[in-house]
């Protein structure tokens, strides 16, 4: 008999990278459905289109790098990046927006760094930021949510498909179906009190934006499911939401025209929940220790608020995540946990001997 000789342990748990990725993709389903409900079929079309592009790009580069294509595609990481990017892109963005964003994310943001596990930046957010900077018009044109009087919104699948893939010529006039997002309106607000703002613009509803509240709650539900399945620890999302809450309390500014919006408004607007549970928790690019993740998450929350209220862009999740990605290695060096038998945790870099 020939005996197998390997190092211990000989037993392995059920976990695998592919399983983790699939769980995360699964957890985005409620959010994606809610997006479709409020903003039309565009999100679904984008998801499928982005997935196709991502898999093609990944396979292409793996082929170029002489790697086993099936093995690496089987980890679902490319698909996850595509899904996250597709959820962040405006639902009716033209097809080439998605193509550019996803291919950039996969090829340059991920594979050219060495593939999964080696990318210093979140690929989806790299793609998003590229698009936001290069095509601001398309990237800020969100479809109007359903249920607003006087704005038709996107009616059916055919219309949505047509606006993304304008094969049949009759492109929708962009202004006909888009509205500024609540965050945009809030940032641009100069003279109206919060109450006046809510009364004047039908995009507002409840404590936040029409549809946006539900989208964020759906992503929150997905995130809680992932927490329950122990896909990631609570540290990053809680720290991020916590610091965003703290910032919004400190800089609330009241109900007047100079106010920055309530805590609930910030928590349930834009990509807050998507960011907190799906973007910031990307393990590859975040800090590794629990304490590190607290700092990392808190940093993201803070930067989001700063960009939203005083920056040049309506939402800041992508920038905040990328900035904290840069800080992650440094955070790692200063947040080592205290090892068993040591009085104090070690800090910083080792002394070269």
């Amino acid at each position, binding site marked *: 008999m020939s005996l197998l000789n390997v190092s211990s342990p000989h037993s392995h748990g059920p976990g695998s990278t592919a399983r983790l990725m699939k769980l995360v993709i699964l957890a985005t389903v409620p959010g994606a459905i809610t997006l479709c409900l409020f903003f039309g079929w565009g999100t679904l079309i984008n998801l499928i289109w982005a997935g196709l592009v991502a898999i093609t790009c990944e396979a292409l580069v793996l082929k170029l*790098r*002489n790697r*086993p294509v099936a093995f690496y595609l089987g980890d679902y990481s490319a698909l996850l990046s595509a899904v996250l990017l597709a959820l962040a892109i405006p639902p009716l963005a033209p097809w080439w927006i998605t193509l550019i964003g996803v291919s950039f994310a996969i090829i340059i943001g991920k594979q*050219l760094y*060495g593939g999964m*596990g080696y990318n210093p930046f979140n690929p989806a957010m790299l793609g998003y930021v590229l698009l936001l900077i290069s095509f601001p018009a398309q990237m800020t044109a969100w479809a109007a949510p359903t249920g607003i009087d006087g704005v038709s919104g996107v009616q059916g699948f055919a219309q949505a498909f047509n606006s993304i893939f304008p094969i049949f010529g009759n492109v929708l006039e962009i202004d006909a179906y888009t509205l500024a997002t609540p965050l945009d309106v809030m940032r641009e607000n100069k003279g109206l009190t919060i109450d006046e703002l809510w009364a004047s613009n039908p995009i507002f509803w409840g404590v936040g934006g029409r549809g946006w509240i539900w989208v964020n709650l759906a992503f929150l539900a997905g995130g809680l499911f992932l927490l329950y399945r122990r896909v990631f620890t609570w540290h990053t999302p809680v720290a991020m939401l916590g610091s965003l809450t703290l910032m919004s309390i400190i800089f609330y500014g009241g109900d007047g025209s100079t106010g920055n919006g309530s805590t609930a408004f910030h928590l349930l607007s834009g990509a807050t929940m998507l960011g907190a549970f799906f973007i910031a928790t990307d393990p590859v690019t975040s800090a590794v220790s629990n304490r590190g993740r607290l700092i990392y998450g808190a940093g993201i929350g803070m930067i989001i608020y700063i960009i939203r209220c005083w920056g040049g862009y309506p939402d800041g999740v992508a920038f905040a995540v990328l900035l904290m990605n840069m800080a992650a290695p440094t955070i790692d060096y200063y947040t080592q946990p205290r090892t068993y038998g040591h009085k104090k945790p070690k800090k910083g870099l080792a002394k070269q001997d």
Partner: protein
Amino acid sequence: MEILLFAICVMLGLSLIFGAILGFASIRFKVEGDPLSDRINELLPQTQCGQCGYAGCRPYSEAIAAGDMINKCPPGGEATIAALADLLDVEPMPLDSEHGEEKTRTLAVIREPECIGCTKCIQACPVDAILGAAKQMHTVIASECTGCELCVEPCPVDCIDMIPIQTTSKSWSWQLPTAPENLIISDAGRGEVA
């Protein structure tokens, strides 16, 4: 024109001030380290084999400090060259084969029945690792031997063998696994087939 002059003056002033600060700092906060040759010597393998052409590691370290090439140390091999290159901030270079090749570490072992007790090896040993007296059998203190091979040539009866250090179950260890995936595109062709 006036603005231009003003700008130049300001720049000049600033550069003077900062220059003065930097100059002061470089003198005031100078780190007193070991002399360069000492730090180089720390990196050499201390086999004292003389394959570099110098009479031991210290003379070679002094020569390197004086500008000699860093690739003359076969016992240290690539690792030492890399460490020296790092210390001296120069490009690592391949080992100069003129001085020998990197080999596995060996120990000198005297075939004792054949030893005629000439003491030639004792005189040759740079670290006093050979024990014996005239007309008496000699032996190598294994724990002190650096494997420099300097004792082999002088032996008139050629009874000194350089024995590669054997792995025993005590010195055995697991090897680093091969990396699961290769990083860059230039690795093409070396990819693991899963």
